[in-house]
């Protein structure tokens, strides 16, 4: 939760991504309490309603769950869930674009795979 907010993306999306990153990095563990929206608001100097919006995205996707009167907790299996979704997004946002651009440049599938091999 120590990243800096940028102006590139909506604040609430950045909040949800930061919490996800912390889960992927084992900074926040499964079944552990995440900072409250008021804590997040104070840490990032943002409106609590915006912080809540970011947290609610994660509740809706099942990464976090609410314990009434106590706060938000990381769901069991959250890490797997985040990776699965991010893989799907990676395919949509990057892999497809790479294949598209490779076609534009007249590259074959083999050329592309070779390139990926080299980069790895």
């Amino acid at each position: 939760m120590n990243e800096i907010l940028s102006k590139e993306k909506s604040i609430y999306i950045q909040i949800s991504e930061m919490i996800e990153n912390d889960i992927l990095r084992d900074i926040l563990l499964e079944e552990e309490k995440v900072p409250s929206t008021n804590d997040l608001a104070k840490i990032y100097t943002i409106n609590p309603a915006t912080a809540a919006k970011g947290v609610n995205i994660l509740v809706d996707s099942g990464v976090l769950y609410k314990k009434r009167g106590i706060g938000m907790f990381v769901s069991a299996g959250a890490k797997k869930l985040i990776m699965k979704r991010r893989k799907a997004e990676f395919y949509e946002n990057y892999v497809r674009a790479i294949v598209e651009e490779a076609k534009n440049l007249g590259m074959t599938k083999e050329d592309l795979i070779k390139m990926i091999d080299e980069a790895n």
Partner: protein
Amino acid sequence: MKTLNCTGIVKKFGNNEVLHGVDLTLEKGKIYGLIGRNGAGKTTLLSIASGQNPATKGEVTVSNSDDIAVQPMKVWDNQDALDLICFSREINVTAGNQGIGGLKVKDYLRAARTYFPNYDKELEDRLVKEFELDVKKRMSKLSKGMLSMVTIIVALASRAPYTFFDEPVAGLDVVARETFYKIALEEFAESERTFVISTHIIEEAADIFEEVIFLDKGQVILKENTQELVERVVHVSGKEEEVDAICEGRKVYHVEKIGRSKAATVMLEPGEELKNTADITVQPMNLQQIFVAMCGKEA
């Protein structure tokens, strides 16, 4: 509903009408940003909304009860209503020791305490420490930033359900401004207060405003959820015909033309997304850029 309502507020100074029928509803438990150019009428509006100045026409009412059977109270000349509102004005101190200038900071704060029934002396003490303000100094010896600190301390410590800050960060250095935003959020989180904060330093405060109010030439031209506004307003540029096609049927705020190229600030429908194409570039805008597009001079 717990709200403060301004209805049809007109304010004339002599023949000069500075507010032209402002309607504004402030809900309990929200932070509003009031943004407008110099002379737009921000201070006048806040002073009328807080019952410090009479409106030429129109009415301000406030309700502090969720019971709909309870009638909202008129604010003007009504102590029960005034007790709910704090408007911490910019302090103007003349050189020398006349008037407010001659008071020591602690005496000024002591006087302020008597105005607000919920005043929290402990919070005042904490804020004085946080801002490292020397309360033994005379008001006339304070810098502009230090005077802003005094108004901030009074506003926060007033614990008034509706608290209006008039350019609270004017003259504050960047560290003190951060301190103010953090303390304001902390106090906001602990209470159900409504804050209205007017400011010219738009970008750094944008993220703490749940809603923004744009006041332009004596009129409220926009009141929107800040995040939604920033998502909906985009800068579209490219080939003139293509840009025109996108502007068609949409709210367009600011148009610029250079040769065959055209640029426009466009408001999209909620949830609508516009993608780059070969002929147009779609770029997000920040709150400050949106404000300039809406309230700046036409090119």
